[in-house]
């Protein structure tokens, strides 16, 4: 059992002894107050970058994927790296919403709303890349099983097809989950609304929520069912994404460890991104009493765990490559660590394996600046993990076909632009929606617990 020293009650997940009203007040006042200047500045930067993204995509469609740094052995580059990166980021949301919900990890309530928001925005960013990375994006719908006059179905053996199902399903479920969770809070905002427009819009989206007993019963059941549906998705999406690589026979890709390793990595990166965002949000919107250090510490512990799972996967890949006796596999891994992309490999190892080790120390995993920096490093490291995997293509079976891949300005622009889009969506979310699940936080207040004086099983 861990406890935070500043808490008057070591078991309490919120500090400052808030009341139901003060929670409502502190969360709802964010979308209700005047637009802060900082938001305006940040939004204009993000929106410009997002606009840049769409311009770059337009240019890409006009010219062709040759504007990227791809070449003959390396048919996939930053676009696919970014895709896997963003899908990975999107994992934490559902994990927090669904799995932690089912496991009754109630500390999740402080962060689940914007973790879910982040999931949706990250998946939106992710979906852009497989769509634009094809040579002829205008016939991308051929990857979907849409009945057509040609009588041709897609190839169900291709992992790219599985991808479109997996990520699509994930997006829909995550969105529903997020929206269903929002309904009571939207109703709160509707009830507090002072202008007619707010009343209509929030009223429309709160679907006539009145907070009645029956409604709560239905709501909680729905939430539970959605959590049940989403739980396997957390595991399946990145498993499927990993089959893009694992079913190929490229040395360094063709490994059975990929699905669990990708899932662990995704949760790892997702938590890092949630950490980055929640640290900013709690500071900017003064939510330190809701997103407490205790919550942050637990997230750090999950990152330590998943970071070590990822580290285990890295070492197991090496072991199996050696143990298989397959010269191509062996070379692929030696080449990762000591070949032309060794720099990327060691960035990955440092950020993903070494950096989380600091969380063994209680002092460090409770230190806000340390955890902020660590979360940034982990984000970088996880991007490089995908980069390292993708550029394994540069050296496969026939040495005569080997080449070196480096990105162009366009590749870099797309990555920056995708961050622009992500933050644009995120800032809009922060401005107009309750960023903390008020109703759920209220549920973990001491006064909401009928056995308040009893033993807590945290």
């Amino acid at each position: 059992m861990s406890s935070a020293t500043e808490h008057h009650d070591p078991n309490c997940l919120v500090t400052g002894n808030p009341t139901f009203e003060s929670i409502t007040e502190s969360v709802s006042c964010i979308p209700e107050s005047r637009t802060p200047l900082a938001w305006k500045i940040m939004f204009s930067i993000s929106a410009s970058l997002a606009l840049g993204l769409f311009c770059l995509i337009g240019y890409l469609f006009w010219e062709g994927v040759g504007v990227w740094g791809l070449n003959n052995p390396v048919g996939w580059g930053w676009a696919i790296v970014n895709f896997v990166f963003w899908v990975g980021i999107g994992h934490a949301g559902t994990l927090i919403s669904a799995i932690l919900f089912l496991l009754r990890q109630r500390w999740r309530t402080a962060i689940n709303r914007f973790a879910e928001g982040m999931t949706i925005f990250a998946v939106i960013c992710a979906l852009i890349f497989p769509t634009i990375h094809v040579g002829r994006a205008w016939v991308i719908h051929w990857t979907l099983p849409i009945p057509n006059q040609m009588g041709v179905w897609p190839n169900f053996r291709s992992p790219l097809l599985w991808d479109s199902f997996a990520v699509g399903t994930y997006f829909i479920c995550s969105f529903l989950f997020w929206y269903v969770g929002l309904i009571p809070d939207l109703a709160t905002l509707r009830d507090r609304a002072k202008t007619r427009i707010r009343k209509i819009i929030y009223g429309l989206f709160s679907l006539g929520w009145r907070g009645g007993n029956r409604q709560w019963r239905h709501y909680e059941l729905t939430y539970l069912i959605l959590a049940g549906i989403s739980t396997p998705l957390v595991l399946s999406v990145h498993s499927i994404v990993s089959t893009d690589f694992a079913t190929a026979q490229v040395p360094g890709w063709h490994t059975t460890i990929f699905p669990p390793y990708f899932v662990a990595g995704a949760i790892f990166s997702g938590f890092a991104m949630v950490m980055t965002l929640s640290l900013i949000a709690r500071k900017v919107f003064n939510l330190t009493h809701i997103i407490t250090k205790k919550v942050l510490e637990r997230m750090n512990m999950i990152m330590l765990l998943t970071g070590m799972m990822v580290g285990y996967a890295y070492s197991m890949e090496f072991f199996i490559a050696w143990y298989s006796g397959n010269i191509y596999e062996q070379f692929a891994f030696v080449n990762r660590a000591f070949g032309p992309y060794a720099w990327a490999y060691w960035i990955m190892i440092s950020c993903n394996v070494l950096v989380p080790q600091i969380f063994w120390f209680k002092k460090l995993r409770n230190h806000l600046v340390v955890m902020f920096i660590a979360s940034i490093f982990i984000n970088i490291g996880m991007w490089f993990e995908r980069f390292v995997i993708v550029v394994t293509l540069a050296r496969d079976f026939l040495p005569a076909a080997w080449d070196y891949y480096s990105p162009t300005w366009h590749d870099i622009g797309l990555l920056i632009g995708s961050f622009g889009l992500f933050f644009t969506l995120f800032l809009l979310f922060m401005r107009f929606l309750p960023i903390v699940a008020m109703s759920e936080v209220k549920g973990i207040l001491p006064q909401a617990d009928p056995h308040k004086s009893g033993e807590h099983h945290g």
Partner: protein
Amino acid sequence: MKDKPRINGKEYWRSLDQLGNTPEFREWVEREFPQGASEMDNSWSRRSFLTIMGASMALAGLAGCRRPVEKIVPYVKAPEEIIPGIAQKYATTMPSGNYAYGLVVESHEGRPTKLEGNALHPSSLGKSTAEIQSTILDLYDPDRSQSLLEIGVTRKWDDFVAFWLTLGAEYSAKKGAGLAVLSEPFSSPTMMRLKTAFTKRYPKAKWVSWAPSADENIYTGIALASGKRLRPIYAYAKAKVLLSIDSDFLLTENDSIVANLGFAKGRSLDSEKDEMNRLYTVESLYSPTGAMADHRLRLKPTDIANFAFALADELSAQGLKHSLRAGLGGSLSASASKWLKPLAKDLLANKGRSLVLAGANQPPEIHALVMVLNDALGNNGKTVEYVEPLDSEFSDMSSFKTLTKDMRSGKVGALVMLGGNPVYNAPVDLEFSKALKKVKRSIHLSERVDETSNEVLWHIPKAHYLESWGDTRSADGTVGMIQPLIEPLFNGKSAVELLSLIVTGQSVAGHDLVRETWKPKVKSNFEKTWRRYLHDGVIKGTAYKAVRVSANGNKISRQSKVTDGYDIVFHTCRTLGTQGSANNGWLQELPDPITKISWDNVATISPATAKDLGVANEDMVRITLNGHELSIPAWIVPGHADHCVGLALGYGHTRSGRVGNNVGVNCSRLRNSSSLAIATGAKVERTTGTFELANLQDHGSMEGRPIVREATIEEYRKDPEVIKEMVEHPPLLSLWDDYEYTEGYQWGMAIDLTTCSGCNACTIACQSENNIPIVGKVEARKGREMHWIRIDRYFSGSVEEPEMVHQPVACAHCELAPCEQVCPVAATTHDKEGLNTMVYNRCIGTRYCANNCPYKVRRFNFFNFTKDYPEVVKMAQNPDVTVRSRGVMEKCSYCVQRINAGKKTAKLEKREVRDGDIVVACQQACPADAITFGNLMDKNSKVSKMKKRNRDYHLLQELNIKPRTSYLAKIRNPNPEMPS
């Protein structure tokens, strides 16, 4: 004047803009010439260069049918009817200096699209080379000269005829004094007839022939030994032991098809019981011939002569009687000395079955020595014969030198240049450009307004050989007919037509000129015989009779040159060749078989020399020779001779066209008339800066992988299954029941690595057959070249003395194709005949298939490489093959269009396809016959038999992908007594 473009387009309007003469159009035109290629260099992709190309719509109106008016005779099918969609084949001949290669040209509705060797012609034997294949693109080169020019002003042919009437009469009166003709070397009865007439009309006129790379040293050397200017004809197939003294007879020497076929014949093995020939190579640069050698000795040029003379001494020490004086050889390195005894022994043991060859770059005394040795070894009359070439003008450096002297002193009033480009490639000490300015009336016949045409009074556009009439004599003397496949696209004139005007003052069509030559020679029924000549493309029975000569080595001497500084070897480019055009994108993008560099020439140096100079790949070096200098990027070639630099000729044009301008460095600027091929005493130093090169293969080691499986004949005989045993893997099982490919035709291919010399002929044949685009240097450097069949080159052994192997790799049509399983839209699928097919219009371009292809043979259209082709280039496209657009994947289809054509013919004739009916493009071109294709269901087909050989193996077979293309392992035949 020099930098002002002299090309005036033909008077076709190009667009509505031009009719309106808008400022945009003015700018367009101004940008169009002549600096187009510099635009390409500066831009980030080839697309913008193609945009410039797109401006040249001058030929839009010409894309239609332009069948010649004169009667030409089809090779296979009747000429009377053209059936749309059915290609016709005509025989013709490609002249190449004193050599010629017979061709069969595929023509679609009057538009030639593909060249193949004429099996009846002794120099092509049905095969071809990259250089020959590429000339079809030259025909449609939009940068060829489009009009006759007088100091840059468009004129008509009649204007020139009128001009010559006065000038010709003037010189006729002076008996030709002050008139000179500078021609390229030729072997042509009609040219010779006209030349004789020229001498008759202008007895005092001068006639000089010169070419930058020629066999002059060979003839001079043989004359030194025998007193006659003779040409050696080698019977490569009969030779058991070959010694090549700096001769790259498999690629850059003339008549390389015959050499390749013969050498391959003496080398290929049915089984371990067969005999195979043995090749020793002594050379400075690494050549494809050196890569094929069983023993290779790298020596710098000055040491090669030492070695050759020392070998002669050693042979006489071992009891061979010959007439060479002893003791002419100089000091030799320890490794070279160790070669002498076993080599001499091997040659002596194979008297009458050996062959010594020397490269055209070697000085005359080496050729004399070679002749003496072949004579003494009893090879004369067996593996080598000598013929006396007729109807031939040979390159003559000394008379060319005299000519320029006369020009400079003002003795030449009128100079007619029949082809050539001396301003660009004449030795620098001749200062040809200066001399040319002293000539009052200069006339240049040229395919393009090149460096020379830019400095003359009259430029006359030269017709491509596929647009002209003519005749040729091949190396062995067989006459080959040149008949046009298309009327001159740009109203060019052939050399015979211009020469005829010079001689007679009348403009006569080439058709009539050639007939005039042959009419007196045909006893009866000329028309019928003439038709037979054109039909066959050759005149049978016109080969020279072998001359029985004996060689005398008494006169052979050599000045032992003591040199410090570096040796320079000026060599024929291994991709452009001697006839290849610098403005030919196919050849420019073709990687050098040794360095794998495309789009540039480099200074090749050895690793040790690089260390001495402190130079890495792509570093610039300055080479100073006889007071002239040039800067060129360096490239390190393992196995290159130390203290020696190789420079390829044919690059660095300024007026070749948008593709060839400013590509590479013109190394003629260092060449001296006294040391055309090999120069000594050069200074080489590193300068600042580097130069980015487009190298198409970055990695040269096989990393210990069994990719090219190789064994010595001894190992192979000891264990005939040695090749199969080189890879061990668990049993190959599938998760599902595999489709049984047991019905109908099942196509497959076998490639024999023992005979493949890496000459690149297959790559260009494929490019021509399958409409493969060029991508330009910037894209090639990124690794986006489109070749469907590439040649992988690997080094093995030490960095100093490596062996080299070549392996052609194209789609292997795997039965369990990894590409097919991962395509989300099923755009690449298998057909029942075992072809891995690409459905271009279904492909969405995920590139997943390329990632999953273990051979990396799939090529992606990163841009729309073909969209902006000028109209005239589109005429070179094969109408039977889809032109791919942007965003789709492509790869070798086993020439599915040829398979279907073969099946169609068989069906119409109500029979099965017979073995040999379907010949795929790479197989067709391969001069070593290393590629076999056919039906695997037919147990008697050649390919089935090849695959039954115990050398047959599947590349990466442990992946259980069941490729249809298999390789026959490389076997070398080293002499156990040689030092390793």
